[in-house]
């Protein structure tokens, strides 16, 4: 969640390639008239927005630094309308950007300036909650948390819980393969979705996966999840529901050294324990959140770990004992186990308010999202500390430590162009360092437009070309959310980024030096 930046503070991600079809030379106004007229025939008056003041709210998603104005915004109310809009856009060769709640953090739903934004906000019905099959069938615009609320009377819930779960929609979760604090134990969206129904860019209905545990043929569902709206438009999702644990308890552990805290994370896992949540905050982050929530965090600790167990009371008691043993063996300086639900929530309150707490102490901040192997946690913290000096900016660190997913928050003032520039360099350095440590540039926020440059670092040209080919298999003309996720060769060359992965370096021999 990036703090809002003034519009145009950052360069837009440059020239998004226009859709194929040779129409890019038609003046935009003329194109807009053509598209609006065609869509007006398909949608009720109130379901199509094109006046400047009406489309402004759609200019960006949760990544507010990147903005564009679409030709128009279509808000279909029925699947037949979705199909008709897609058929028409396909016929006119207009790019289509699907949009849920617009809470994404990487600009995945940023409009295309020569495209249609397809808002699926009206697909907000929970169609069925079936306690026997432990599934919920929901329209794509249903909010993540609403699913768990509807399942609660049956003692069930939907496990993935991204921090934006109050607002974000299941369709967006499918697009981003969203995680959350419990995904080490309960999995990501891809592990909790059985079936996705939707439409191809041609407007044909298509179903990926099934209500069984597999479907015939290639497992297309696994590539649809996380495809950031580039392969098909999702309208309905069947999710798995799991029994709600009877009890959860959390350990708050202090360490006087980040390296020791990092080692403790590895030791917990190596002991055969899969915690329901395993989170880490460094000292500056702890200070910022304590000032905000007053949860009684240990301000002297260099790092704090939150380690949670859930299940039946017997299970939790057994696991908490094992966790305490490992954590104290790793040199924890203070250990506290939540006595009741109120205290457990208090432990979590700081972690869950890390972003707003950062917003209080800095005009702006930029949140990174790379993942590294767990064993490199301490190394990356040390590296980030050096970068703070190098770029002259402060950085607060929160991690989903259990799965190595980092969210460093770089503090800066966007009104100072130099700070903004240094912040971007700092962020890119964190991502590239993560890739060098064997990690990835995005763990859960997606590539969108934000990390296109970093994708050049992680993937070789042939790998990116293979991804483009995969996209063309679903969307031959490149009309669905064009310009996102996979950077073109030209873009990587212009950005001066060279990829640094595995044996696929352009000069593999250089690795040895």
């Amino acid at each position, binding site marked *: 969640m990036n703090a809002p930046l003034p519009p145009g503070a950052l360069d837009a991600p440059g020239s998004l390639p226009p859709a194929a079809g040779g129409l890019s030379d038609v003046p935009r106004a003329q194109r807009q008239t053509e598209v609006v007229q065609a869509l007006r025939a398909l949608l009720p008056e109130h379901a199509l927005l094109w006046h400047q003041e009406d489309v402004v709210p759609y200019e960006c998603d949760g990544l507010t630094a990147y903005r564009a104005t679409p030709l128009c915004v279509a808000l279909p109310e029925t699947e037949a309308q979705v199909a008709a809009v897609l058929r028409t856009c396909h016929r006119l060769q207009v790019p289509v950007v699907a949009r849920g709640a617009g809470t994404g953090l990487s600009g995945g739903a940023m409009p295309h300036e020569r495209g249609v934004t397809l808002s699926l906000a009206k697909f907000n019905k929970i169609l069925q909650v079936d*306690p*026997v*099959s432990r599934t919920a069938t929901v329209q794509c615009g249903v909010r993540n948390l609403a699913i768990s609320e509807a399942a609660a009377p049956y*003692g069930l819930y939907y496990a993935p819980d991204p921090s934006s779960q109050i607002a974000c929609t299941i369709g967006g979760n499918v697009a981003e*393969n969203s995680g959350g604090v419990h995904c080490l134990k309960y999995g990501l969206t891809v592990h909790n979705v059985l079936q996705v129904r939707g439409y191809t860019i041609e407007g044909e*209905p298509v*179903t990926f996966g*099934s209500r*069984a*545990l*597999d479907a*015939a*043929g*290639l*497992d*297309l569902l*696994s590539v649809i999840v996380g495809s950031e709206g580039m392969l098909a438009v999702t309208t309905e999702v069947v999710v798995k529901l799991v*029994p*709600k*644990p009877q009890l959860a308890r959390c350990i708050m552990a202090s360490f006087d050294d980040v390296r020791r805290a990092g080692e403790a994370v*590895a*030791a917990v*896992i*190596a002991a*055969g324990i899969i915690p329901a949540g395993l989170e880490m905050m460094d000292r500056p982050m702890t200070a910022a959140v304590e000032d905000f929530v007053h949860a009684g965090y240990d301000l002297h600790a260099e790092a704090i770990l939150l380690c949670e167990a859930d*299940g039946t009371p*017997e*299970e939790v008691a*057994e696991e908490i004992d094992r966790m305490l043993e490992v954590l104290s063996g790793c040199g924890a300086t203070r250990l506290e186990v939540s006595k009741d639900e109120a205290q457990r929530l208090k432990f979590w309150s700081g972690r869950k308010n890390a972003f707003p707490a950062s917003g209080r102490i800095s005009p702006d901040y930029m949140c990174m999202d790379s*993942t*590294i192997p767990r*064993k490199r946690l301490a190394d990356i913290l040390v590296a980030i500390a050096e970068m703070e000096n190098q770029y002259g900016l402060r950085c607060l660190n929160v991690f989903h430590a259990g*799965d*190595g*997913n980092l969210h460093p928050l770089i503090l800066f003032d966007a009104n100072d162009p130099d700070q903004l520039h240094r912040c971007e360099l700092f962020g890119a350095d964190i991502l590239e360092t993560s890739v060098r440590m*064997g*990690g990835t540039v*995005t*763990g859960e926020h*997606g590539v969108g437009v934000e*990390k296109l440059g970093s994708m050049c*670092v*992680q*993937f070789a040209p*042939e*790998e*990116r070309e*293979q991804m483009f*080919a*995969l996209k*063309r*298999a*679903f969307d031959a003309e490149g009309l669905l959310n064009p310009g996102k996720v996979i950077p073109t060769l030209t873009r990587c060359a212009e950005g001066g980024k*060279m*990829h640094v*992965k*595995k*044996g696929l*370096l352009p000069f*593999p021999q250089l690795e040895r030096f």
Partner: protein
Amino acid sequence: MHGVVEGSPPTLRDAALEELVDRVRAATVHGAAADGEGGGLCIRGAGSKDFLGGPLQGELLSTGALRGISSYEPSELVITARAGTPLSEVESVLAEKGQCLAFEPPRHEPGCTVGGAVAAGLAGPARAAVGGVRDFVLGASLLNGRAEVLSFGGQVMKNVAGYDVSRLLAGSMGVLGVILEVSLKVLPMAPSTTTLRFDCDERSALARLNEWGGQPLPLHASAWWDGVLVVRLSGARAAVESAQRRLGGETIPTEMAHAFWAGLRDQRDEFFGEALSAVSKAGHLWRVSVPQTAGPLGVTGLGSGTLIEWGGAQRWVVTAEGDADTEQALMKAARAAGGHAQIFRGPRSGTTMALDPVLLRIHRQLKAAFDPHGLFNRGRLHPDF
């Protein structure tokens, strides 16, 4: 960038890999066109799953020389192995650290390989509880039909950089390319496991399994056949003990339980023994994948009855040679239940996959995207490609 890769090991470009690359490169130039019918390359590890899918076609391309565990760190919960590494080697290395491949890939023959397990995408008794092969694939390197060595995914649990191509390879039957190396998520073995046995008919077995599935029980695997329901509980000691008290049933001695689940997993127990003997007489073993809540299939004329796994989601039945009526009824019943039925073993293996026109088009185009010359494993996944 001045990159020194400190973390994940590079894909080892040794002689074994270069030979595969050269073979594929040569085939892109000469192979496909020249060979025509029955041509292309037939990717094979240990050959333990030659029976699966359509008949083998083309020149053998063995992954047997791509051997070895590239990296394994228990605290990272990930193991990376080259495709030709025997599954047994991976599992014994994991067992030393108290970890396992939780999806329990079947071992049809002792030498079966990691690459084959991922390409076949088959999972064992724990599938419904823990997930399938694709749920555990974190990364893979692939030799595509342009003779390019590509890497997707990685060794970390959370990774949304680009399309998740590595998971797509699970169950791809090699039609997208040669899997060279895979990184798999591993899990600790549960501290405690118990197996319970109940006498009950098919309908009440399905009802019980679905009822239990909605409760916070450490249910880990299930099997029903011939009037007997067997369930495995697995998890924290206290959780297993309390579930055992709650569910009742007869506790099966540990050794016997172990043999039972291994026999089921590797498909060499009594049911599969009977199925294989039917297959040897030109019969067919069918795998039926349906929602867990689907009732009994209600198809008559099945030899050996129905074996039900995965809490009701996977069912196995046998049809006799030439019994087209039963086969049609079976496919219809599976469709009606919201699933599908496919021949798993038998003379007409690979001929029963039904895809609707849109999905079939996407499949064809994906095949062309990865393997434009149509070199790999023709007809193994689908008769059309």
